[in-house]
């Protein structure tokens, strides 16, 4: 049986429905990300799970118990906020111990638990500091410790990393994931950063405008996007215009070359135009074994990203992005150079 | 959540009653002058009183002079301290807090002892001198408010950057203050000015001890001699105060937002 079971969750503010009958179920110990663009309703779902918003309809069950109508302070969940939300008048130790104190844990046990938490987040010895004496990353780690100290049944995180700078963001997300795996705590993580979601989740819920677009493991989301929205929102996507040659045989003409694609939309007739999509990394410069389509074009732009070089190539009416690895021995290609690129027709996606 | 809002409304309603009932009662009282029926006789009687006109006029003039002197004393000081002498700031803050700690009554006692007709600066020796002393006292009284208003105004416009930009374009110091800084903090200054006006217009203690024919002492005189006019005067004073504060609110809409725009 599912540990977190959300059924037909709907939320309406005044006239607008921002969450439209969302259902999902997850197992104990899973790390789940809610991913989607700004305003799609991620925070609203999280706040309904937390109990700060009352669902217009639908139900939320945790561990077999319906919590839809419980008050937030009766749900035994832990939450980490975007802006840390540490209590400024309490020192680090008292912040972490707050939930324990409310639960009536005796001072000595509390002390031990606080020390254990401080060790877990790598801030041993910081217990007498006040929040303003900590960096953003440290504050957020304290907030994490505060949320998990009372051993909540589930951990909710609402864009906990977006107030931090890039380096800390990456290291802290790895830390969060390590702690989560260590404790085996079921976690719901809200983010609009696809890289973040892909890198730490067991499963991802991709959302758009109050609906679930796709639910699956990171590699499924990336490799087999169910909708065009998911494909463009998660990762980079190229579009190539093609003409259908034979709908039954799934052959199309790309820039005059015939190719067989894995699938075609049911509506595609012979001679009609279709858009094919493909990830930047499946294109390669020059010929490559297994690639059956070769196209020639001009380099429109070169972005040097360190280990990777991103090229933008004009191919007839199409503009494609392509990633190649940096080669220390040769200079990156120059703008305006003619190149040939190749791809395998089986990597083409039809959305 | 429901009960929460109930208590909020209840608290608000009780508070509102405490503040509105006296106003209604005063207004009702001010209409009672003619026996058996409500009338505006009390107001007519007030406006017909030549002392009302003269004392009110006197206080308005003193109020305006106080505002001008206050601005001239506060604005350049705040500007240069912010710009060049930040180490003086704590001292300025301390000075501007003093009038809130030392009662006005004590200050005026000090003035009378210090500036009497036999002293080196015999302010109280002549009517004009006493007027000057009264103005000085009012500037002091309003100092905390004027200072805070101007200081806030200068903080939001980031005078350092503005000044540098003006200097690069070749403006001199007088041009910088007159053409760049003043227009930008005009709203802040006007807020301080209206607050000053509200404080000065009905002030009683200092004016009465310096024996000046101001509105405050006139009010007390009416209070001891008449029955209904005081209520009418209370309503008139409330409207004046409301007008001054209303102006501050209206002006607030024109205030420059912070110069460090993030939008």
């Amino acid at each position, binding site marked *: 049986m599912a540990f977190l079971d959300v059924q037909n969750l709907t939320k309406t503010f005044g006239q607008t429905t921002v969450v439209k009958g969302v259902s999902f179920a997850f197992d104990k110990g899973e790390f789940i990300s809610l991913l989607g663009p700004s305003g799609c309703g991620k925070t609203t779902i999280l706040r309904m799970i937390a109990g*700060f918003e009352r669902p217009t309809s639908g139900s939320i069950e945790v561990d077999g118990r319906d919590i839809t109508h419980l008050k937030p302070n009766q749900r035994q969940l832990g939450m980490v906020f975007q802006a840390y939300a540490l209590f400024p008048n309490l020192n680090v130790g008292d912040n972490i111990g707050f939930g324990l104190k409310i639960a009536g844990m005796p001072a000595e046990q509390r002390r031990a638990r606080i020390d254990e938490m401080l060790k877990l987040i790598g801030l041993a010895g910081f217990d007498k500091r006040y929040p303003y004496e900590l960096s953003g990353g440290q504050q957020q780690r304290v907030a994490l410790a505060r949320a998990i100290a009372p051993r909540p049944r589930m951990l909710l995180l609402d864009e906990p990393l977006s107030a931090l700078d890039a380096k800390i963001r990456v290291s802290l997300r790895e830390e969060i994931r390590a702690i989560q795996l260590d404790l085996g705590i079921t976690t719901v993580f809200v983010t609009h950063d696809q890289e973040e979601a892909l890198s730490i989740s067991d499963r991802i819920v991709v959302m758009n405008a109050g609906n679930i677009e796709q639910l699956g493991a990171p590699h499924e989301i990336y490799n087999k996007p169910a909708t065009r929205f998911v494909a463009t929102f998660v990762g980079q996507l190229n579009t190539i215009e093609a003409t259908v040659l034979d709908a039954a045989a799934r052959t199309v003409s790309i820039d005059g070359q015939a190719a067989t694609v894995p699938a075609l939309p049911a509506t595609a007739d012979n001679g009609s135009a279709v858009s094919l999509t493909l990830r930047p990394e499946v294109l390669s410069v020059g010929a490559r074994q297994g690639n059956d389509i070769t196209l020639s074009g001009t380099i429109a732009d070169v972005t040097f990203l360190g280990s990777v070089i991103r090229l933008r190539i004009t191919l007839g009416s199409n503009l494609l992005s392509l990633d190649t690895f940096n080669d220390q021995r040769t200079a990156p290609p120059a703008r305006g150079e003619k190149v040939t690129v190749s791809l395998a027709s089986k990597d083409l996606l039809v959305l | 959540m429901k009960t929460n809002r109930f208590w909020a409304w209840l608290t608000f309603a009780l*508070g509102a009653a405490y503040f509105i009932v006296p106003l209604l009662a005063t207004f009702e009282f001010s209409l009672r002058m003619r026996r058996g029926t409500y009338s505006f006789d009390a107001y007519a009687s007030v406006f017909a009183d030549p002392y009302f006109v003269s004392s009110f006029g006197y206080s308005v003039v003193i109020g305006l002079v106080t505002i001008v002197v206050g601005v001239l*004393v506060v604005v350049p000081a705040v500007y240069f301290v912010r710009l060049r002498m930040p180490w003086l700031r704590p001292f300025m803050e301390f000075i501007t807090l003093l009038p809130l700690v030392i009662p006005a009554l004590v200050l005026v006692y000090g003035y009378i*002892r210090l500036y009497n007709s036999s002293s080196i600066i015999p302010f109280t020796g002549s009517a004009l001198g006493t007027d000057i002393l009264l103005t000085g006292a009012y500037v002091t009284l309003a100092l905390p408010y004027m200072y805070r208003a101007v200081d806030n105004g200068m903080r939001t416009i980031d005078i350092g950057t503005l000044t540098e930009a003006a200097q690069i374009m070749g403006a001199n110091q007088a041009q910088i203050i007159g053409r760049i800084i003043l227009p930008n903090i005009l709203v802040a200054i006007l807020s301080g000015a209206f607050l000053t006006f509200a404080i000065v217009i009905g002030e009683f203690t200092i004016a009465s001890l310096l024996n000046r024919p101001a509105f405050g002492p006139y009010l007390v005189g009416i209070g001891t001699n008449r029955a209904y006019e005081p209520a009418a005067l209370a309503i008139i004073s409330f409207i004046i105060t409301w007008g001054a504060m209303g102006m501050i609110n209206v002006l607030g809409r024109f205030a420059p937002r912070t110069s460090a725009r993030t939008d």
Partner: protein
Amino acid sequence: MTNTASPRRIPWDALAVAPFIIFAVMFLFLPTLGIIGAAFTDRAGSFTFDNIFGLFTDQILAAYWISIRISGASAFFGALIGLAIVLAIIRGRLPAPLRSAVMTFSGVASNFAGVPLAFAFIATLGRLGLVTIVLKFLGLDIYRSGFNLLSFWGLTLTYLYFQIPLMMLTIAPAVDGLKKEWNEAAQMLGASQFQFWRYVGLPILWPSFLGTLSLLFANAFGAIATAWALTGSNLNIVTVLLYNQIRGDALQNPGLGAALALGMIVITSLANVIYLVVAARAERWMK
């Protein structure tokens, strides 16, 4: 102000700050020092403590005591009630237009002090005041049951009319600074609303609360116009005593008058020092 090194350079900084300093010296420092000096000077002009000792008479001590009580009570209740109203408006999610209307009104009411305020309360709760009459009509004769506008409670009730709004104006920014997330974080950790206010909300407001309390105290302690207009010279509070002394040497000893004034400065300063000490301890967590 001569500048010999570069005669054409005008020392703007000094010129601009000079009026302010001169003003402070002439209208704040010298008068205060003059009072302090006079408090320790006898009629012959030599140093003495007699004036200070002279304060310890029944009448003067009683005047101080009533002033302290009225100021303390009006500051305390003003602060509590003001905070309650601000919390109701900001945290109780009352409509936003209401909030701005209330704050504008507070600006007006906090400045509606002095003589007109006394008139308003006479018209309200005086012997012929509307509320008095209405209550009598309803069967409650408040003057029979011991109420008097010219008493401790009467004056306190009147002072609250400017104390409450002053509290509201000064505390509102602090209440605004309470982040919604703090409350939510506390709830997630199992805390009730009561526990949130007990451990987080009120401790955060505490320093601002104390600061405003001392401001309100000084505000009421130095006030005279309202009391004077209500009661004439009859009420034995320290400001009225000092006023009479300044007017006509009622104590028949100028040095004693100065000592009386010095006592007032000491008391209001003390209120501030107490605030600073307590706030310094309560503010450890602030930047």
